[in-house]
């Protein structure tokens, strides 16, 4: 379970989060929506401990992330996957080596087992044909999928997805949504998903929250949110959006 309790964070001269409270139950996908620059990515960074709150606490399975030392953070991060907004691949490593990186650094797997595992995840994100290519020469959508593969390769209990379908065509997008739902259902992965897409929210989400002015302005199950008359819900989930 991921919990943010009354988290506030100031970056530079701007108050990004102000009293943000959020709970993601085990085995659920929580979709976080909100205007550009409202602090969605900043929220994810708090969960994995790259940022620490000025006030409030961040809890994962009841452990306070905001108070962890380096060793504890490392242990936590091994149980989490993180898909960055643009993939954040290492440029001088091939797609294959990028995905293999967390395994090579931490898991002492035999070579063949490691290769099998990487190939398997690459197939999952439909990228097995591009394993030998390098990040500078692949499309934004492919980078994102490679980033997703890298987030999933270690079999994490939690995955934080930062815009998993940005720049993807509708067909691949749909496949990624199904994949995220499948990862939840079959591997019991808990997800926190940042997206602007109604399709993504409704297809892979269990609950949806919309961030405005540093906290969740409205939150509810997918069905409730789609029906809601709240102007923010209409703006992000209404028929015309996506």
């Amino acid at each position, binding site marked *: 379970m991921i919990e943010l309790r009354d988290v506030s964070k100031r970056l530079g001269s701007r108050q990004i989060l102000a009293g943000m409270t959020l709970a993601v139950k085990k085995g659920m996908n929580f979709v976080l929506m909100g205007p550009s620059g409202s602090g969605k990515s900043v929220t994810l960074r708090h969960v994995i401990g790259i940022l620490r709150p000025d006030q409030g606490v961040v809890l994962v399975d009841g452990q306070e992330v905001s108070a962890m030392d380096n060793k504890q953070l490392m242990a936590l*991060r091994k149980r989490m996957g993180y898909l960055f907004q643009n993939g954040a691949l*290492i440029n001088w490593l091939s797609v294959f080596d990028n995905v293999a990186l967390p395994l090579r*650094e931490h898991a002492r797997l035999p070579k063949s087992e490691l290769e099998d595992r990487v190939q398997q995840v690459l197939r999952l994100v439909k990228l097995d044909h591009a394993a030998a290519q390098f990040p500078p020469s692949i499309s934004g959508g492919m980078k994102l999928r490679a980033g997703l593969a890298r987030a999933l390769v270690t079999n994490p209990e939690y995955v934080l997805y930062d815009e998993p379908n940005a720049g993807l065509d509708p067909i691949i997008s749909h496949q990624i949504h199904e994949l995220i739902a499948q990862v939840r259902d079959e591997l019991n992965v808990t997800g926190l998903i940042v997206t602007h897409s109604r399709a993504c929210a409704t297809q892979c989400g269990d609950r949806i929250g919309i961030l405005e002015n540093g906290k969740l302005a409205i939150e509810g199950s997918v069905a409730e949110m789609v029906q809601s008359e709240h102007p923010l819900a209409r703006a992000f989930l209404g028929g015309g959006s996506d």
Partner: protein
Amino acid sequence: MNPLAHLGQFVVKRADGAGFVCELLLRTALYTPRLRRRLRFMLDTAYNAGVRSLPVTMVVAAFAGAILAMQTGIELRRFGDTAVLGTITALSMCREMGPFITGVILAATVGSSIAAEIGTMTVSDEVAALEVMSIDPVDYLVLPRVVALALMCPILTVLSNLIGIFGGSVIAEHNLGVSPQLYWVSAKEALTSSGMLLPKEVYVGLLKAFVFGIAIATVSCAAGLRAAGGALGVGLAVQTAVRNSVLLIIVLGFIVTWFFYFLAG
């Protein structure tokens, strides 16, 4: 803003930067026992650094040697003692000029590209991605680069020294009327006649080069890791890296010579 507050802010910012560099160096040192895992990447980096900076370094070294020979030759001619020109050129090249120009060229070519590369990684979340995978950027990015330059700077310095002494010989022969034979014999003698296999000048010069390599890499990595704010931030990181590297080369060069010739010498 009042000038005093301005100055105060400047000092605080610089001190903060210096603190970061020192901490980075320390953390890098702690990772050196695990260098084996980064060996491949380290050697690649060293090789690239060498290839990239070799041509410029050699040209600059040749001219630096020529300047050295001219400068000392003009004075020596007045005393009619140009016979020691080879000795002086060889020793000053090895102790001062060789490491100095190699360091400056490395800062401009390799230091800047390290800052640009790591800076780009920082602003595009790649460094954060490493942290999230529990890979310490110090271990993965900084360590191989620091070791690569610590290795490469002395190697390039040896080449610079040789080319510089050669550059001096051209001036000696054509402008100062010192026969090549005399020049080379005195240079060779200066570089071999010593109880320690090589004279102190050579060792001090190589130690400097080693220190410069570490300083350039550390300062450039630090600038890259502290980059913020997109492409503009990367540009500023490069500027910081080169400026601080050159500053450190001058100051550390002074300290090393001073230590070995005036304090401990």
